[in-house]
Every structure is written in C-alpha cells, then in structure tokens.
C-alpha cells in the first residue's frame, strides 16, 4: 500500500492531533475536541488553495461543531474526492457491524482484547485522519507526492464518523446527557447502547504499540538499510496526554516572543507549530458569505486560544456552563440540588438492619469451631486425668532458708560504699538512775530548754528515779526511731577523713633551748631615764663598755654597761633623739645621734683612753683643717641645694664632746655605720629624694646615692663585707652595688610595712621586721622570697637584730616582749638555716600602745640591750 508507506512520516508528525480527531465521536459531549477540530479547520483553510481541502475542513468543522448534523453531506463530498473511499468505508463499516454483533453477544469483560484487535485493524487500515493531512499541508506543500497522499488520507475521515450515523438517537442523547467523566462508566454499564461508541473511541486510542513490532521502513540515514519505525502510542481518554489540549509545548511564556517568527511554538515531538494564517477582512467576509454558520466566528460565542492564536468556537454546552457560572449556579446542568433523600437505613423496614454489607452471614459464624472443641476436650481430659490441677498454687520457695554459708566473701572495698554509722551506745546520762552530777542544774536546764532541738547535745533531759517502777514511758521513742529511719535513707552521706593523730606530732621537732645556750634569759641591769621619757634608741659601743641611749626629752645619755650608771649626757635640744649609733671602729669612739634636721657626731673624750681619743679627734677634724669648707659637699659638684652642711660646733660644745654637726633635710630616723667607721648613712623619710644620704667622715662629704627613690625608704644598711647597700622601702628590700652603681636584687618581703632590718654578719642572710607583726628571714642565696615568715608577736615589730658573734637574733615588739631566737647559718649551701625560738623576754611595760622600741646586741657577749617606751633601757644577760 504505497500511500500508507508514504504517509508514515506525516502521520507521525501529526500524531498528536490524531487522538483528538479520533476521540471526537466518543467524547462529543465535551466541547474541547470539537474546538480542536475547528481550529484545525481554520488553520487548514488558508494554507490550502484548493477547494477540496477547504471544503473538507469545513465540513469536518461543521460536523463536529454542530453535533453530527451533516454526516451525509460529508459523505457525499468525500465521495467526490476519492474512489478508494468506498472500500475504506466498507471495510470500516463491516468492521463496525462485526463489532456491534460481537458486542451484543459477549460480556464487557472481553472488550479489551477485542479492542486491541480492532485497534490493530484500524491502524492497519489507514491513517485516516484529516489532521494528518492538515498537518502535512501546513508543514509544507513542496512535496507533490504527498499531496496525493494527503488527499487520500483526508478522504479517510469518513470511517471514523460513519458509525455515528449508525447510532440510534437514544444512544446519542444518552451519550450527550452525561458528564464526560462518567462516560466510560456509563458505556460499561450500558450493555448495548454505548458499545460501539466505546469501541470506536478505543479503536482510536489503542494503537499498534501493543504489537511490539513496529514497521520496517527504509532508513533515512543509512542508504538501503531498513529501520523499524513504531507507531505513536495513542493516549486513552483517561490518560493525561489525551486530556492535554495544549499541543503547543512552549509552556507559560509570553506568546509575543513568537511574534517575529513564522511559528508559534513546538509540538510534543519538537516540531514547529506554524502560525495559523489570519485571514484578512476579505477572507472573513467570504467566510461569512460561504458558510452560513460562520457568522459565529466573530460573534461573542467565540473565544481566542492564545496559545494557538486562533478563535475558538464555544459550543452550546460551554456557553451554558458560562451562563451558569455567571448566574452563580452549579456549572453542571444535570446537577439536581433538590434530590429526594433515599432513606437507606432509616426507611420503613430498614430501621435496625444496618445493611452495610449485603453479604450473607458466613456459616463459620454460627457453627462452633471444631478445632476449638478439640482443644477444650484435650484440656478437659487432662483435668479429668489429673494432669492439670486448676488454681494450684505455684511451688513456693520456703520463707526462710540458709542464705549465708561459710565461704561467703565480703564485697571488695569501694570508695563509694558508705555504710550508715551506728547509733553510739548509751552513756550513763541516759540511765534511769544516774549519778547525781549528771542531772542538770537550773542553768543547764534553762539552756537546754531554750536551745533548738537540733542544737542540743542531749536529746533528752537526764532524770533520776528512785525505783524502776517510777520510770515513765519515753515519749519520743517513736519519733527517734522514725528519725533514725529517715536518716538511713534520706541523709546524704559522705566520707570524712578524721585525722586521728596526736596534736603534738604537728609541732616541729627542734633542739631544746637548753642545748643552745648561752642566750639572754633575764634582766641584769636597768638604765632608768628620768620622767620615764620614751627611749627611742639605744646602742652599745664597739668595745662593749658603754651604752648610749636617746630619749624623747632630747638628751643622749651614755651609761656604764656594767653597773647602769649614767656617765655622760648631751642635751641636743632638737626634740626627741631619733637614733644613736656608735661607730663600729674599735680604735675610735664616735657616737652619732640624729634629731630633727641634724646629725651630731659625739665623742665622750674624757671616758676613753687618750690614744683612742686622739684617733677619734683626728678622724673627726681632719676635714675641717684640710679644707676651708665647713660648708657643703656635693659629689656631683652641682651648685644647687646642698645635701648636707657640715658644721663645726663652738669651742665650748666641743669641749663637752660634741664634735661635728651635720645639718640635713628632714628628720633622720636612722643612722647606720659602714663597718670601717668612715662612712655612715642616714635615712630621713620626709626628705623626698634626699631621704638616703651617705656621709663620709674623713672628708666631711655627703652624697645622695639616689636621684629618685622608689617608695619611701624605711631602713638602709651596709653589707658586712661587700660594697653593697640595702635599702628597705615599705614593701621591698633592694640591694645595690655601690661600686657598680646598679640594682642587684629586689627582695619581695610580702610584708605591708617594713619597720626594721638587719643583715647577718656573714652577709648572706637578712631579717626584716614589719609593723604587720611579721618577721621574714631571707636567704639571699636561696630566693628573693622569704625563707621563713614568722608571726608570733601580737603587735608591730619595732626592731630586729643579729648578734655579731653568736648565732642569735632577737625581735622587739609593741607587745612589750622580746623574742630571742637561735639562728644558725651553715656554710653548706644545701642546708637551710636553723631557727629555734629560745626565749621570750618580758619586762618592758607597755605605755600608750608602745612596748620595746629598740634593741641591740652586745658586740661580744650574748647580752641584749633594749629600750622601751616606759623610759627604761634593760640589759638582758644569760
């Protein structure tokens, strides 16, 4: 069949439109396929020049649009077209008749197979849609061969419409009076009437896809080869693609984008859909003239399909729907809002039956189960035979039995296992007849009653009964038991380590003081000052013969150490004497004393041997004789404010032993000598940056070693044998190298306010006393932190001192006591100094909160000199 073969390509091209045309008869009720058809027609009309095609299109359109008005006409016209028509129609008719017959005989269940066959037949018969032809035409007129074919194809429209003419009117009405959705169901249910339609519809739908073979066609790409070409799968009505009316696949894009293009989009296969020709006014007019129905084209009953860019004729049905929607009615014309209620369950005779299911009651529901019966009988038999005893109590374990055996082991100890403590055994207090001393007296009774229950040491009041029969019941018994129970399960438990040691073991083991003798133990001599004026300072001379003391009445006294007799005195008349200090040089006898603004260098010449007196005088006066300057000295030679002024007292004063006066700024609080007796340093806290001054006696020179001092300097000291200088500010002790002129070390004392300082004669250890009751021992080789910080005085420390020869040191405090310590320093660097407290010396009275103000050791003997606020200086000897 040459035409068929030649048609394959166009057919596939127009395949999408096929279902629409095919579906037309079956879905005639819905307006949409009809619309499509008319669209096709519209498109066809302009592109085709020849009459025939134009007519055919129009007839078709009219045919669909008018609801199969003029099937006969179409037949006539088609007749003119093609001679093959007869054959085609005949076959199709025969087919149909055959189908109808069978349909009438067979059950609907067999339909499908049949339909398949029919579909096959149908396909084989021809590609008989006008759409294909139309498509073919639209796609181009170039191929003349195809023209013929198309004309042939177009003629084959008839068979599809033919069966319609055979349908009875009833069927048509029935078909049109149902909603499209219901169509299928109705056809199924209507055994006879709907059959051909269904078959017809299905013949269109079911393609030869089920053949699974396709057709072999010469390949377009390889010459001489064959390729298998499959027919398009026609979608059924229910499928998505069949209801798809939009054959233009461009999607939701503005159609204007295609304005400049010849096509308006693409079909499913990706081929261009050419723009339908829009006829000009003449065409429209001609259309109106030639087609009596065409007035509708421009009437309000058309609507524009934007996607396909053409006017679509709305069917009556659609118009009806629109009207209904406008009137806010149900769009379905067949919907009856006032249906009669059918009382399925409550109607007469149906009241209680509730026929949810009409299935009859199965037999098993009312016949006793055989298997159950068998089971029950088994049990009955067992019971009869005594194998089963109903309600027999389960075999019970005995209530008590031996759970402990001899080889039980305790759980291994665990840190979290804390057994509850047992209640301690009762004491005699609890006795019904205790010894009388256990009974409370009035005070204790009152105290016990006033105490809170938790605070009481005893939870009962001791009582004494003279006979056992008098003992009443204990009223808190239940309460106490209950509390014990609560404690057992509610009281949080914790492990407390109870330190079960002898408190004496905490006290360090130290050698007994008896083994460390000699040390001062008692007061040997008292040097009383008149009017009990406070003795701020005291000093013993280098030979250990004289004691100098400076009291607040401004008088420096020299006492005979041995018998406590006052042997010399200088009235300095400059307020309280702040400091007195003998020169450490044994060849001389110079006493320095400080009052506000002045430092006196004194020498009790009459008391000393002439040889010593001579050296002393020489030492004191050489500078006066060598230089004219009895005035100032400034090491840097700067002309400004002098650090000090060296003044030679008058002859009279010199006769009384007052040899040199050094005038300085502020009030010097401390005078300390260098070991050689030429230099001495003074500290005046209130003299700003000139607070520390170093004076040279042989040259009558004074220098201020620091331009600026960090913090207020409290004490200074010379190292016993190195050119080092110790400066104690309130919190720190700084060590300077006087030769290198640099800071060597800063000692962190941890004290709040240093009051006193002394350096061990070997030079490696240091003690610092403070106003915050502490004494620090520094081992300079060890650390810049204290080796030991001791706190034993109850008040501020005033003075600390090392003995020059013995391993002793002492501290004096405002609490009126002097503590004597043994302090051995070992040459072995690995061994720490040994400190042993030896003795507390008490004797000084506390006056106005001040106790012992100063103390000094005797240079050679284990004796101590102390001065107190009670106006006494005491010598403590061993």
């Amino acid at each position, binding site marked *: 069949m040459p035409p068929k073969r030649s048609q394959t390509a166009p057919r596939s091209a127009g395949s999408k439109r096929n279902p629409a045309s095919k579906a037309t008869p079956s879905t005639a009720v819905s307006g949409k396929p009809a619309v499509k058809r008319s669209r096709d027609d519209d498109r066809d009309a302009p592109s085709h020049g020849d009459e025939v095609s134009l007519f055919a299109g129009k007839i078709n359109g009219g045919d669909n649009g008018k609801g199969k008005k003029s099937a006969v006409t179409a037949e006539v016209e088609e007749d003119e077209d093609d001679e093959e028509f007869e054959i085609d129609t005949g076959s199709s008719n025969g087919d149909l008749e055959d189908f109808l017959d069978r349909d009438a005989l067979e059950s609907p269940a067999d339909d499908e197979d049949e339909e398949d066959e029919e579909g096959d037949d149908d396909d084989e018969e021809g590609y008989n849609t006008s759409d294909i032809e139309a498509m073919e035409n639209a796609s181009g007129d170039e191929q003349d061969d195809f023209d013929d074919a198309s004309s042939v194809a177009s003629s084959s429209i008839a068979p599809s419409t033919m069966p319609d003419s055979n349908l009875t009117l009833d069927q048509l009405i029935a078909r049109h009076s149902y909603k499209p959705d219901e169509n299928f169901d109705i056809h199924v249910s209507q055994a006879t009437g709907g059959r051909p339609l269904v078959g017809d519809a299905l013949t269109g739908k079911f393609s030869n896809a089920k053949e699974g073979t396709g057709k072999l066609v010469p390949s377009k790409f390889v010459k001489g080869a064959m390729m298998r070409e499959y027919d398009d799968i026609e979608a059924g009505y229910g499928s998505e693609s069949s209801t798809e009316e939009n054959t233009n696949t461009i999607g939701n894009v503005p159609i204007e984008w295609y304005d400049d293009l010849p096509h308006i989009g693409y079909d499913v296969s990706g081929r261009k859909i050419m723009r339908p020709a829009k006829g000009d006014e003449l065409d429209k007019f001609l259309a109106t003239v030639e087609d009596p129905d065409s007035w509708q084209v421009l009437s309000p009953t058309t609507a524009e399909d934007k996607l396909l860019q053409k006017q679509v004729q709305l069917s009556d049905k659609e118009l009806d729907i629109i009207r209904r929607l406008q009137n806010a009615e149900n769009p379905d014309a067949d919907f009856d809002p006032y249906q009669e209620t059918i009382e399925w369950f409550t109607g007469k005779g149906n009241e209680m039956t509730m026929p949810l299911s009409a299935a009859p009651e199965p037999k098993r529901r009312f016949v006793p189960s055989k298997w159950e019966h068998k089971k029950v009988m088994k049990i009955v038999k067992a019971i009869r035979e005594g194998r089963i005893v109903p*309600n027999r109590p389960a075999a019970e*374990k*005995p*209530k*008590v*039995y*031996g*759970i*402990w*055996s*001899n080889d*039980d082991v*305790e759980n291994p100890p665990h840190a*979290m296992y804390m057994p*509850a403590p047992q209640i301690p*055994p*009762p*004491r*005699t207090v*609890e*006795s*019904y*007849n*205790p*010894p*009388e001393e256990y009974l409370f*007296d009035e005070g204790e009774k009152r105290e016990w009653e006033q105490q809170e229950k938790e605070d009481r040491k005893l939870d*009962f009041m*001791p009582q004494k*009964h*003279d*006979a*056992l*029969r008098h*003992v*009443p*019941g*204990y009223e808190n*018994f*239940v*309460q*106490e*038991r209950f509390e014990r*129970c*609560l404690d*057992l*399960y509610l*009281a*949080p*438990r914790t492990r407390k380590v109870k*330190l079960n040691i002898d*408190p004496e073991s*905490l*006290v*360090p083991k*130290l050698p007994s003081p008896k083994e460390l003798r000699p040390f001062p*133990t*008692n007061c040997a001599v008292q040097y009383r000052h008149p009017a009990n004026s406070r003795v701020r300072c005291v000093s013993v001379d280098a030979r250990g013969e004289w004691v100098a003391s400076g009291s607040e009445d401004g008088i420096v006294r020299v006492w005979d150490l041995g018998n406590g007799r006052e042997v010399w005195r200088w009235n300095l008349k400059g307020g309280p004497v702040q400091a007195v200090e003998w020169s450490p040089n044994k060849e001389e006898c110079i006493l320095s004393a400080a009052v506000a603004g002045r430092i006196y260098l004194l020498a009790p010449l009459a008391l000393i041997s002439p040889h010593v007196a001579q050296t002393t005088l020489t030492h004191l006066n050489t500078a006066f004789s060598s230089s004219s300057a009895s005035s100032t000295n400034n090491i840097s030679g700067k002309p400004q404010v002098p650090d000090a002024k060296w003044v030679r007292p008058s002859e009279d004063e010199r006769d009384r032993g007052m040899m040199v006066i050094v005038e300085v700024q502020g009030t010097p609080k401390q005078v300390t000598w260098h070991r050689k007796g030429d230099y001495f340093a003074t500290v005046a806290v209130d003299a700003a940056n000139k607070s520390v001054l170093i004076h040279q006696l042989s040259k009558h020179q004074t220098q201020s070693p620091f331009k600026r001092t960090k913090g207020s300097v409290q004490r200074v000291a010379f190292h016993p044998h190195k050119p080092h200088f110790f400066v104690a500010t309130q919190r720190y002790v700084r060590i300077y190298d006087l030769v290198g002129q640099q800071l060597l070390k800063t000692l962190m004392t941890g004290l709040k306010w240093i009051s006193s300082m002394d350096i061990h004669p070997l030079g490696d250890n240091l003690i610092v006393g403070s106003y915050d009751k502490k004494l620090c021992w520094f081992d300079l080789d060890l650390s810049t932190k204290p080796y030991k910080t001791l706190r034993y005085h109850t008040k501020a420390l005033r003075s600390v001192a090392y003995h020059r020869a013995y391993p002793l040191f002492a501290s004096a405090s405002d609490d009126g006591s002097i503590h004597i310590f043994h302090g051995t320093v070992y040459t072995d660097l690995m061994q720490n100094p040994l400190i042993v*407290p030896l003795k*507390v010396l008490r004797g000084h009275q506390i006056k106005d909160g001040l106790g012992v103000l100063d103390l000094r050791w005797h240079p050679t003997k284990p004796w101590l000199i102390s001065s107190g606020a009670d106006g006494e200086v005491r010598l403590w000897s061993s």
Partner: protein
Amino acid sequence: MAKIKKRGESGAAKNYITRTQALKKLQISLSDFRRLCILKGIYPREPTNKKKANKGSSAPASFYYSKDILYLLHEPLLAKFREHKTFAKKLARALGRGEWALAKGLEERKPLARLDHLVKERYPTFKQALADLNDPLSLLCLFERLPRDPVPGKTQVPHEVTAECGKLVAEWKVWAIRTHALRKVFLSIKGVYYECEVPAGRSGETVNVRWLEPWEFKQTVPADVDFRILLTFLDLYRTLTSFVLFKLYADENLVYPPELDVKLDAEGEGIGRFKLVERAPDATAAAPTVEGDKERKITKKDVKKSIRSIAHSSAATGGMQVDEDEEDALIKDEPSAEEEFTYHPSKNETDASDPSNAPLPTYTSLLTAPSSSGNSHDDKAYTIFSPYTFYLSRETSSRTWEFVIRAFGGKVITHPSLNQLSTTPETANSITHILLDRPMDASTMRALQGDRKWTWVQPQWVADCVNRRTVLPSGEGSGYEPGGVLPPHVSPWDEEGRDDRPWLGTEAQAAAGVAQDEEEDEDEEMQTEEGTTATAEMTSAMRAAAENPDDETLVHQAELEAEAAGTDHAVFRKQLAVAVRAAKASAPSSSKASTSTAPAGKTAAAEEDLRKIMMTGKKQRLYEKMQYSNNERRQEADKLASKRQAIEKRKKKAAK
C-alpha cells in the same frame, strides 16, 4: 598529646545523678523510688563539689551515685512494682464493675514481692548482717507493742505484722537464752538496752548486737510520723531478722522456726511459748530446711561440735544434765522449776515414762542444757545466776527480767502470787531471790519468808550483776534491798568511751577525794584572806617572782629591790611566800585541777608555745582545732568532777 576532656563526661558530673533525673531514668513515682531506696539501701551522697556534680547549677538537689541508679534499673522489685500497679488497676476495675468472682481470682493471684535476694545482696556475709542488726531489732521491739492504728486515720499497722515482730523478738531472745549470748543490760530512761555477743562465723569472730526495747507503756506517736516508711523498713528488717535467726538456729542445730505451743501462747506465756526442736541428724527431710542445707548438714564443724559436746557432757559429772537423758535428769533435779516454766509437767512425765514415745526435747530442757558452743570459762561468767531461782513479783517486768535471768542461767518463777507462795511449799523452798520493786516493811517480808532464806532485791541488782559479771552483795546497806536507796546505775558502755571517772569506782575513794578537797578548800580560804592583805604592797619584781617562784633570778631581783626599800630579809621571805600563794589563787581553776604537775607542766607549756612559732599556718590551725575539741572534752569532764565534788560536800554538810 593528651585527649581533650569534655565537660560533664567524667568525674563528679558523671558520678552523681539528682533525684529528679533518677526518677526520670527509672520511670517510677517518687513513692516507689523511696521504697526502692529503703529496701535496696540506696542513699543520697554529698558530693565534694556540688556545683560540679550538678553540671554547673547551684540549685539545691539531692544526689545519688549514678551507678546505684543504674543497678536499680535491673532490680526485680521494680518489675514487681509494675505488676502490682497493673494488679491494683485490674482489681479496682473488677470491684467497680461488681465482678466479684474476677476480683477474688485476682486477689488470689496477687503479685507478692520477696525480699530475700535483697538480704543476700546487702549483706553478703553473715557478719555484715549481724553488724547491721541493731536497727532492725530496735524497730521490731517497737512494733511488737504498737496498736493497729498508731496515728488515727492514717496508715494502719496490720495485726499480722505486729504479731510477727513479737514472734521474731521472742525467737531472738530464746536463742540468746539458749546460747547465753547476753552480755550487757542497761536500764535507761528510753527503755532497756541489751547487748548480745553473736558468733559471726567459723573463725570465732563475734559481733555485738545492741538493741533498745521500749518500756511497756503506750507509745505516744506524733501525727507526722509516716508509718508507710516505717513499715517499708519493717518489711526489710523482718526478712533480715528471720534469715539471721534461721542461720543462728541452724548453727545451734535447731529447727527454725520453732514450734509455737498453742496452749502456752493462749495463756500469755512470753518467751516460753516456743518448743525448740533439735534437728535429728538423719531427719533432715522432716525438718523444714532447704536443699542447700542438706550438704551443710554434716560438715566437719558439726562433727567436731558433737564430739566436743559428748566430751563435755561426760566431763560434767553431777550438776550438769546430760543431753541424752536430759528429760529424766531435769525432772529429777528441779521438778518445781519445770512445773513453773511449762505448766505441763505431768505430760512430760508421762512422755518420759513411755520410752517408745521418744519425745522431742522441750524448750525448757533445751534451755537448761548447756550450750554446746563456747567454753566453760565463758559459761561461768555468763551463767552467774545458775545456782539461783528468782521469783518475779508481779510489778516487775517479766519480759525483761525473765529474759535476763534466764540468759544468765537463773530460773524464774512468776506464779503464784507472793501471798500464796506459802501454799505451794515446794516452789517456795526452791526460791533463792525475790525480785521486788515496791517498798515492803521488814515484818511483812519476814512473814512471807517464814523460815526460808530468801534474798530480797530490787531489779537493778540483776542488771548491775550482769554488767559486772559477778553476784553483787545485796544485803542491808547495799541499797538493793526493797525500799533502799539504789546506787547509781551506770552505763556498761562507758568504759568504751572517752572519759573515765575514778570517783565512780568505790565509795572509799570518793570519800578520800572529798577529804582532800576539804583540806585544799581550807587552804584556799586562808590563802585568799592573806593574799588580799598582801597584794596591796607588792612591787612588780615581787609579783614576777611570785608568779614563777622557781626562777631564782627573779627572786634575787625581788630581794635586791626589797633591800633597796629597806625591808628585812625575813620579812621579805614571808612576803614572798604570801605573794606566791596569792598568785596561785588568782590563777584560773583549770590550772588548779592539775596542781600536781603544775611546776613541770608550766615550763613545758612555755617551751611548747615557742616551738609552735615555727609551725606553718595550716598546721597551726589544725593544732588549734584539735586543742579546742580536746579542751571541750576536758572541760566536760572537769565540770562533772566539780559537780560531783559539790554534791559530796553538800551531802557531808547535811550529814553533819
């Protein structure tokens, strides 16, 4: 590099769990949790750092050891609780619907929780169980006499529970009597404390079990006492005690539980209502024991024990009863006692006369039979009353005294009443002691006594004898005679404690102490008189010398001063002596207490003071704390001593 530790994944945060978390984890109610805690012995802990344990929160919470809670998850009791809950629901439903048959069936199949696994779990060894027996016994003693609804309208105490408590306590006492395990008795105002020495295992270890029995009065029960808690504790304690008793009875080769003599029980007999039955060596099947005991039955120990008992019985000649024919011997030896104890001597006689009957040994015979365990020396110390028969007057508590006297080997008669004793001369003749707790004039006593030799004592005498392990003198002047002024009753546990009071030893010592005190007092008075006159004219040196008279230098100093002042040497010496005495008087009383060691102690104290300077701050604080607590204790003792002295003095003055 070490692994980075995450917060809250180790240490206290993981070790501890709060109660709320625990409840959530276990998915039980608070009351169930509490019950579980009581039964399982789980208790809250006090973490060292609460904030760490609570994951940073400082909100108050009680912490449990999280492993405790994890173990609780697998506790069979928990399942039982759930079962019971569903049971309760079903029962309520059945009752609500009136389905009585169903309810009855449910009630019959009620899930019952058993606690025996807990006993073994909490006390893996018998020794541990004994060590924790103080609380159980005390609570059992309390419940023994509790009414059905101690707090009206609240939780009730079922009668069965009280009855079981009474039974357990009585069984415990029966055991103690048989083994002479009682060691100490203390009559306190709260009740009577007893202490038993219980053998804890093969190696001869013993555990002292002490319990408190309230006086036989109605208990006052505060309304806020939650009896649900107490009953939960009681559940556990009952189970524990019964298992302990089983073990003790088994060790004594007795059947547990002992049979109850229904007749005696109805007559209101206390301890005597049990029939102790020895387990026949071959009759294990008859005895209610578990299979586990069968193997244990004939161990090496048992064999040894039986050998020893045979040897013992053969060694004991006349006075001791022999196990084999104890029935006859007993009846011959002391028929009256037998009569008094069991009230059916005739039955015994008939039984004994019929050898084919082969009677089981009765409670009394077993009691009087010497205990096979324990050596003879101990027996002597703990059977001090064995030669005696006590008559308990009706006002004395037979519950206490029957137990104590029998435990120490004595025999007890309680019937008939004192006036009618003469009607039963046999009974009356056997009596050696009469326990009387009411005043009775000598003539009445003589009349009652007739020509018999009775010792009349107050109950405290028994307790004191027991605690001293000797029979104390009880005649006129001892204070123990009826109506006499009793000597103080002292706790037997005091010597275990902190302070000893020598004045409690003997009267003579106390008297001597008083005399000494008096002298001192006189001295003091004289001194103070002189001192007040002398102190006025004292110099500081003199004062210093007086304060330490041993310090020669100070004395010398004072002497020098006196010389300077122009006083005579003799006068000075006198003055010094006066000053020294004044100084002593002014010193605090505490130092006076230790006068004997004063001079040596003082220097020692001073030395110690100085050494303390060298202590570190931490040690110093610790030392101080220790000294504080020691001082407290010393002060308490001192206070008692001084009170005692004051009382003695007052008494002496009154006597004058």
